């Protein structure tokens, strides 16, 4: 049955293989979605509704079957034949709800309008139909990784380039360990802060936070302007490589201005309430625990890793290359982009891949800062559930050696395979890049 505009409507969600003869009896399990059918010639078949498959064919007395009683735990059946004899079968159905199709394919579940990918492993009632599709979890894993890297890669790469090529050595000594402190933070602390402090706050100030992205390039331009004007006005001299010391206070100031302008932006541009505005114009609802929060929080885990490895790769570019480039008349930026970056590209690439690996396997931040809703939606304004968080959420509740328990192990294996494939590809690419730039 599914709900239509006229109320409930009968549909044909599953079609099973035919039995050889006319069916005379059907008996349904009280727990789970297994059922037994028997036909006129005494063929008995055990079938499972969700997975659409025949689990077993029982061969009994080959007489017409009058009635079948399915044991309450689905572990046995009593069959009454037309000659008055009752036969008892012991059944071990195993894990009938799991097939490749129920795990990776669309399944038409009870009460659903159409076949869908759904993860919902447990329910309140005995006749609950477990929905064990791993596709929403895989999608969630990639969604989380995508938003984390979208935020982390640019910041880490730009920061590493600046630290290794442009910054003054005196600042570099302080900055590199500072950024590396980030990596020392336990992810449960980051997850806690993201879930309990950042998420509720972001919900209040989101328009201001969006304004930060608009305003910070302008604060950068203001920094450039001040950098060139102040020495002329006051006669002080700035050394090259100290730009970041001007930028940080300006960025904080710009952020403050953006947050201060946020409510006005919301009132005048976003018609007073950004959530209503999002729903109105983009048909997106805003959840408090969402991909933006996770993307930002995962930045704390991913940025320092990418930054450090990248910085090491960029710093180990031979000095004679950069000096040569500068001596030939290229400016600082040209040297950085045309000489340093390509030479360090294998290292940068592996930095990104290691960051990717960290993001894909990250559990605690995702667990605490998303709503863990296994949905298939790539909007940044709602949550998701990753494979790793799913294992952490469900393993305490999964019956030992039950179906869910095994599916969770399968998802762990899948996570391993995913990272294995990605790391292998990354290693191949890295080797090629290395070969290409080895001669220099």
């Amino acid at each position, binding site marked *: 049955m599914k709900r239509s505009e006229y109320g409930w409507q009968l549909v044909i969600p599953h079609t099973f293989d035919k039995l050889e003869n006319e069916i005379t009896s059907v008996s349904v399990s009280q727990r789970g979605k297994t059922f037994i059918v028997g036909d006129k010639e005494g063929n008995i078949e055990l079938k499972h509704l969700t997975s659409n498959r025949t689990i077993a064919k029982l061969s009994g007395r080959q007489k017409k079957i009058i009635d079948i009683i399915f044991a309450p735990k689905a572990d046995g059946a009593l069959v009454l034949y037309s000659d008055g004899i009752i036969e008892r079968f012991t059944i071990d159905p195993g894990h009938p709800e799991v097939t490749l199709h129920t795990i990776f394919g669309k399944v038409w579940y009870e009460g659903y309008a159409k076949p869908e990918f759904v993860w919902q492993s447990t329910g309140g009632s005995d006749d609950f139909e477990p929905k064990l599709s791993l596709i929403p979890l895989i999608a969630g894993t990639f969604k989380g990784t995508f938003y984390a890297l979208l935020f982390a890669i640019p910041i880490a790469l730009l920061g590493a380039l600046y630290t290794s090529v442009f910054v003054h050595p005196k600042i570099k000594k302080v*900055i590199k360990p500072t950024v590396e402190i980030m990596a020392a933070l336990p992810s449960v602390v980051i997850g806690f802060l993201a879930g309990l402090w950042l998420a509720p706050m972001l919900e209040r100030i989101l328009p201001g936070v969006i304004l930060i992205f608009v305003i910070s390039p302008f604060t950068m331009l203001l920094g450039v302007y001040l950098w060139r004007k102040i020495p002329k006005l006051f006669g002080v001299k700035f050394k090259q490589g100290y730009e970041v010391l001007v930028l940080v206070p300006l*960025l904080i100031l710009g952020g403050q201005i953006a947050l201060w302008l946020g409510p006005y932006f919301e*009132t005048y541009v976003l018609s007073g309430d950004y959530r209503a505005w999002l729903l109105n114009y983009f048909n997106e609802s805003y959840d408090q625990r969402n991909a933006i929060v996770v993307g930002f929080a995962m930045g704390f885990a991913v940025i320092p890793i990418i930054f450090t490895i990248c910085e090491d790769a960029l710093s180990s570019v031979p000095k004679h290359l950069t000096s040569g480039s500068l001596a030939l008349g290229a400016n600082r930026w040209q040297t950085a982009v045309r000489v340093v970056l390509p030479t360090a590209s294998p290292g940068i690439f592996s930095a990104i891949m290691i960051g990717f690996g960290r993001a894909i396997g990250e559990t605690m931040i995702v667990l605490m800062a998303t709503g863990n809703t296994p949905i298939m939606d790539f909007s940044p304004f709602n949550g998701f559930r990753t494979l790793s968080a799913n294992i952490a959420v469900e393993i305490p509740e999964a019956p030992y050696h039950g179906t869910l328990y095994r599916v969770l192990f399968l998802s762990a294996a899948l996570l391993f395979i995913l990272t294995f494939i990605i790391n292998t590809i990354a290693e191949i690419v890295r080797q090629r890049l290395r070969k290409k730039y080895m001669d220099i």
Partner: protein
Amino acid sequence: MKELIKKGELFIWLTGLGLGVSIIMIAGLLFLVFINSTDFYYPSAIAKIKKEDNSYLLGQIFQTEDVPQASLPDSLKPTIYSRNQIKIGNRDIYGFDFAWVDEREIDSITYPKNAIAIERTEYGNFYGFLESIKIDGERKYSSNEEIESIIHSIVSEVSGIREKDK
């Protein structure tokens, strides 16, 4: 401007922006942890808030947030109000710990010196004034000076008993 782009100076600043953001992130996080922990050692003063309708609230101002006009249906101008969350405690009397009060509802805020907050083992914090202290229904201290002199010795005596209990 053109010259800046040509020389790549602007892009260098862009890379500096990346580094600046990551530094602000880590410094901000440490700052956040620091600020939230000092809150514990230096609690805010107890405020007595007189509302426009002549009712009073006593408690600590817990947080303040700006509310845009759209969520306040009775206002016509697009204005932003600030709204305070007050920890009023006394859950055994009111049934809830917090009250919300809009800035425009407030007539005046004073910080009475003799208001006290007591952390209790049950029903959360108590906020109020000490009128008098009775011990075994007999000895009574009701003037400010008497209370001032006796309260600290009572508190340390009681916490001494608690320590022994452990």
